[in-house]
């Protein structure tokens, strides 16, 4: 059994028609329930539910406070390499884009680590382009030897790996894995990923599950919004999270709602995802999976990040650089995508406090 089987079943359903047929009554019924089903989640993603955003927001806010309190976990990405063997049309690191590539030496990893630690950050995610030759198991393990000295939690957002490789990395101290499916529609997926190992849809789809099997403490998944109908993609992301959570009860399954940002490939989103759409997707998910973490990145604008604080997010990045070596050499080379929120960690902390949230810097201990 793989989530692929669930996906195949969903693909047989006339989701678009079903979405149009959701009634106001369906939405109201979903909002009255204490625990909602897949059908209710579907209803909350429908066009009709957009008339109930305030009610959804009230409910999502109450559930978030109940489960997570008045807190927000902060983290930063550490870009270690921009070597990539894939051709994702929406990403600057695509092998088709010509720019000088770089991978950090261990001395540079340490300098970046110090720079991030000096900002007061304790949780980081190692990011790279997808290249097994460069961001290899061996290389990541070397990085971990350095990073362990500075951080209490280190996660991964690199190319998908096999279960045994993940196990080795878990043993080295990595405790969480982020892997975005990008798009759950197999045809669109193949159009956007024309070459490289990323072309194998099912291998990528099963990646979070391999991470769970390898003993990752938490897993974060997402669809990159803008590549396909956001209602459909959000619905399937929610089902994917539910599938993983039910199968791997000991893993914290979280999601994020990334929207396509300007990038070196000048790829234009197929579908516009407005702020209102993004909020609806997030609220529906929060009500569907109240215990689940939701991450918001610096892709989003500062004002928007502030406005959605009470609506469900539990983790945020701050002062992120999406450039390899970007914390110690701010004017350097090629970023993966353009970020929208350039504020410092202290500024973000100040904003959180102003809104009644305690910024949490440390929420795990390497043991």
């Amino acid at each position, binding site marked *: 059994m793989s989530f692929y089987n669930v996906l195949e079943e969903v693909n047989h359903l006339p989701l678009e028609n079903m979405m149009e047929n959701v009634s106001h009554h369906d939405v109201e019924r979903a909002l009255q329930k204490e625990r909602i089903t897949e059908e209710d989640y579907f209803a909350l993603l429908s066009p009709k539910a957009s008339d109930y955003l305030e009610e959804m927001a009230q409910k999502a806010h109450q559930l978030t*406070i*109940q*489960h*997570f*309190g*008045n*807190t927000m976990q902060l983290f930063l990405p550490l870009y270690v390499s921009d070597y990539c063997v894939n051709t994702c049309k929406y990403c600057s690191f695509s092998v088709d884009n010509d720019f000088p590539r770089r991978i950090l030496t261990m001395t540079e990893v340490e300098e970046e680590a110090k720079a991030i630690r000096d900002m007061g950050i*304790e949780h980081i995610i190692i990011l790279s382009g997808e290249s097994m030759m460069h961001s290899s198991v061996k290389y990541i393990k070397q990085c971990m030897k350095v990073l362990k000295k500075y951080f*209490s939690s280190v996660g991964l957002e690199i190319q998908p790996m096999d279960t045994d490789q993940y196990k080795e990395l878990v043993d080295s101290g990595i405790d969480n894995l982020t892997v975005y499916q990008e798009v759950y529609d197999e045809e669109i997926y193949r159009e956007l990923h024309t070459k490289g190992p990323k072309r194998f849809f099912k291998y990528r789809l099963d990646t979070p599950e391999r991470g769970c099997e390898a003993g990752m*403490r938490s897993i974060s998944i997402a669809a990159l919004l803008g590549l396909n109908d956001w209602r459909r993609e959000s619905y399937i992301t929610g089902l994917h999270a539910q599938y993983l*959570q039910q199968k791997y*009860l*000991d*893993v*914290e*399954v979280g999601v994020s709602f990334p929207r396509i940002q300007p990038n070196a490939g000048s790829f234009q989103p197929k579908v516009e995802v407005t702020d209102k759409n993004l909020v609806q997707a997030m609220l529906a998910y929060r009500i569907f999976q109240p*215990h689940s973490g939701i991450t918001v990145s610096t892709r989003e604008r500062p004002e928007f990040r502030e406005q959605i604080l009470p609506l469900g997010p539990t983790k945020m990045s701050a002062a992120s650089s999406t450039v390899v070596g970007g914390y110690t050499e701010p004017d350097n080379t090629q970023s993966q995508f353009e970020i929208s929120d350039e504020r410092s960690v202290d500024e973000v902390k100040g904003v959180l*406090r102003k809104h*009644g*949230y*305690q910024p*949490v*810097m*440390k*929420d*795990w*201990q390497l*043991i």
Partner: protein
Amino acid sequence: MQDSLVIAGKELNSRLFVGTGKFADHNKMKEALEESQSEVVTVAVRRVDLGGDDQYILNDIPDYMTLMPNTSGARTAEEAIRIARLSKAAGMGNWIKIEVISDSKYLLPDNEETIKATEALVEEGFVVLPYMSPDLMAGKRLEEAGAATVMPLGSPIGSNRGIQMKEIIQIMIDEINVPIVVDAGIGRPSEAAEAMEMGADAVLVNTAIATAKDPVAMAQAFDLAVKAGRSGFLAGLGATKAKASASSPLTGFLHS
């Protein structure tokens, strides 16, 4: 009348234990801790900057409180044991609240792993206070393993649903000889009073105080409720006995 609770030789005048998670800011938290009159506070070891100069949350806890570090985040007995040792090594004392949770959805404790961790840590000299899913046999085994208290959940953590597990908790109160602390699920002061009226030795409250509109006022309310519930429990026992010996409405005829 002195009615203190003694845990591992420590005499406590308040039967309210408090938590430190979910607060919007640490100043409010400190004020709430003080106003609660509580003398025992639990802190997640994973949230404490163990190596750093800034002890994070520890600086914001009143000195007179007994620290009960917890192993939140542990999924197995082995992880809980490692966290407990880190806590002791970092100077956080030898009390440890065991939390072993391998269920990220409902956050229900794993009793089997909790018993294993309790056995090992009692052996190492810790004062062990295990958080558990209400169950008589598991409670008995924790007692046998040397747990200083047994802390069954009232309902799932953070749910603010009150004492949903009332029947089982009552049995545990009646049958287990170490103090029973109702931990988790208590959403309002009246529910804390209810647990105390049932004869629980103490209650642990976090979410209900931390996420209240006014955490400081809510801390005071819980203090009063715990005291009221305890008084009710003590008064209730006395009254029942007095009534039984004063008259025998059903069997009086046997004596006439």
